[in-house]
């Protein structure tokens, strides 16, 4: 018999073969959480970190002080961005399975976080994403074909073949270069925001990490610097319950909500229903107003569920129940926004189905175009000697020699 020590070992509520159990989740009723003034001191609104901001009700209507009162046309744009993100993900998953790209990460079930937040911010705001916010790229108008070319490391790849798939960036889109290292972008976002404040600009920075990544030291660095200098930054924790195979309790989520981590730094923490497009939009708008008016940073915890595998290299059926995703009590963000629009009378099931097909076709057509710029095995290819560029601003002598040597040796 295995001896048990007094040490506490966190366990997820259910493992494969067991019934899904989300009884650990504390969920507030829609409309229940008050909306304080943005200048309220963090500790006076500590409840925001322990409750959950929600706007959409189970009957597909809205309620409460956080309702952002968005026009139906804006919501339709949001719905489209989320659906396009999902269509893109599905297409990329499929081509990865066909061996056309080496790796991919889906954001299924979390689309509202990136899309609603991006729409609540301004184009001049600088975004420092992790690897699961492709919705930001799409909501900022990056073309699917450009994102696909990055995943293909082909001749149109904005990274020139230097990064794994999904590590996009866009200087003109104010989307920072994505790193595979966890949480490194968090203090960088704070520094960017500090510089914006120093220069007297009213742009803010926003950054995203997962629940597991809160354990990294850069999380503490970012919150400390953001608090000390009251940087105009929005720091987001996308709590999708799973860090690859470890349940969020392994990052400390079993004790206190991640949003509450802000309070010790004097930073307001807000816990929001991450699958409620309207709620995510509203808290982001609130945090942006705080940042822009000099009231300081905000930590937002988005409670959501990673409906897909961590990546194409992962098999979640080995560590969590297969039915987990369908049992998630906060539902699906696309479905919820769709139902709301249908209930408003500005959207129909038929329109929805037609849009789904249109976006699927768009993803498929984009892929067909992307591969004409090359794949890793055929078609036009990047010049390998280009790897010596951009190590430094100018190529130093020893790299010029190495490049010549590589070319003289035939390149491979």
């Amino acid at each position, binding site marked *: 018999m295995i001896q048990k020590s007094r040490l506490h070992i966190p366990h997820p509520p259910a493992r494969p073969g067991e019934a899904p159990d989300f009884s650990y989740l504390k969920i507030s009723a829609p409309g229940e959480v008050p909306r304080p003034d943005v200048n309220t001191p963090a500790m006076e609104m500590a409840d925001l970190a322990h409750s959950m901001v929600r706007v959409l009700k189970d009957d597909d209507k809205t309620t409460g002080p956080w309702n952002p009162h968005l026009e139906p046309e804006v919501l339709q744009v949001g719905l489209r961005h989320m659906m396009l993100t999902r269509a893109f993900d599905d297409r990329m998953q499929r081509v990865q399975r066909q061996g056309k790209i080496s790796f991919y990460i889906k954001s299924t079930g979390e689309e509202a976080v990136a899309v609603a937040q991006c729409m609540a911010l301004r184009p001049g705001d600088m975004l420092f994403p992790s690897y699961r916010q492709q919705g930001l790229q799409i909501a900022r108008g990056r073309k699917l074909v450009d994102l696909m070319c990055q995943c293909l490391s082909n001749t149109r790849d904005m990274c020139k073949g230097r990064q794994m798939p999904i590590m996009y960036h866009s200087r003109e889109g104010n989307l920072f270069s994505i790193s595979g290292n966890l949480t490194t972008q968090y*203090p960088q976002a704070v520094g960017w925001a500090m510089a914006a404040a120093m220069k007297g600009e009213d742009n803010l920075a926003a950054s995203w990490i997962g629940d597991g990544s809160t354990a990294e030291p850069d999380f503490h660095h970012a919150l400390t610097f953001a608090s000390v200098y009251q940087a105009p930054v929005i720091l987001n924790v996308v709590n999708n319950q799973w860090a690859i195979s470890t349940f969020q309790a392994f990052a400390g989520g079993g004790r206190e909500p991640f949003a509450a981590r802000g309070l010790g730094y004097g930073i307001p923490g807000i816990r929001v229903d991450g699958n409620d497009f309207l709620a995510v939009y509203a808290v982001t708008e609130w945090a942006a107003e705080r940042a822009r008016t000099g009231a300081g940073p905000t930590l937002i915890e988005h409670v959501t569920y990673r409906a897909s595998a961590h990546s194409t290299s992962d098999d979640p059926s080995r560590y969590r129940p297969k039915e987990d995703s369908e049992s998630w009590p906060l539902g699906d963000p696309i479905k919820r926004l769709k139902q709301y629009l249908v209930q408003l009378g500005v959207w129909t099931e038929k329109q929805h189905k037609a849009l789904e097909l249109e976006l699927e076709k768009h993803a498929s057509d984009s892929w067909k175009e992307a591969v004409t710029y090359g794949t890793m095995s055929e078609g036009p290819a990047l010049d390998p000697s280009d790897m010596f560029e951009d190590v430094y601003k100018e190529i130093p002598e020893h790299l010029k020699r190495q490049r010549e040597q590589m070319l003289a040796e035939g390149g491979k």
Partner: protein
Amino acid sequence: MAQMNMIQALNSAMDIALSRDPSVVIMGEDVGYFGGVFRCTDGLQRKHGDHRVLDTPIAEGGIVGTAIGMGVNGMRPVAEIQFADYIYPAFDQIVSELARLRHRSAGDFFAPITIRSPSGGGIRGGQTHSQSPEGIFTHVCGIKVVMPSNPYDAKGMLLSAIEDDDPVVFFEPKRIYNGPFDGDPDKPARPWTTHPKGEVPEGHYTVPLGKAEIVRAGTDATIVTYGTMVHVAVAATEKCGIDAEIIDVRSMAPLDVATLRTSVEKTGRCVIVHEATRFSGYGAELSATIQEECFWHLEAPIQRVAGWDTPYPHAFEWEYFPGQKRIINALRTVMEA
């Protein structure tokens, strides 16, 4: 011209950079109100304000991480890591982020930051205030790594580093902040006023990165060194009567190979000297490069004089420190071969 020690020269460089370029900010632990534990930023906050000379939380990873973000947003941060021994918490931000940002974004993003850090031993600092980690950073592609050995170079190279669009890790040999040190701890301290490189222009000038300097011409052998050891090598050479040419590398990455090649082709003999530990140290790169470039001119195996491969011992500093005697022994070894 003015007389300056290295601290004053570095201070002058930052003062000028702050005055000339509104995007320059100084940041680090104790660098603001207090002026830095070595006084390198003394008076800068008073003159330029506490929005440009920032005291920071004690978090090296946070300092470098936020400096990167500021650099990306058009600022030119000069971050101080109080001792090179404390740079490791920032290692991930330097190696995985700072060094690779330009390359991974195909030139679309870069962070033109300078990381200043006092390094090296000889101050009774034990293992946490004496390390010479430059070789750990020269192995990283995408950052420049430099170390001046005198006030004139310190100022000119720091201005070059700040103005450089690539990130620069700027190590300052703290044993010679106040005066050149020849490796003999029993001799009275010598101030920089006794050294020609203590003469420093008050205004703006630069010393280019990537250029070595011949500090003593000679014909018998070549000593390749940098930092504090430049002065130890000069003293050792004068003591032993071997006419060695002494090269101050100054810039470890990028390395001025041509100056090394010309000298070793002439002398045929080479001794490499650094304070840092020997195994996989920067001397190994120097030795390999010189062997590749000058093999047919070499009359003797290249010798390396370095710190022993142990943590820096507090009680046995002068047994550990690669002083004059060990340099002279190495010179005799290459001459006798």
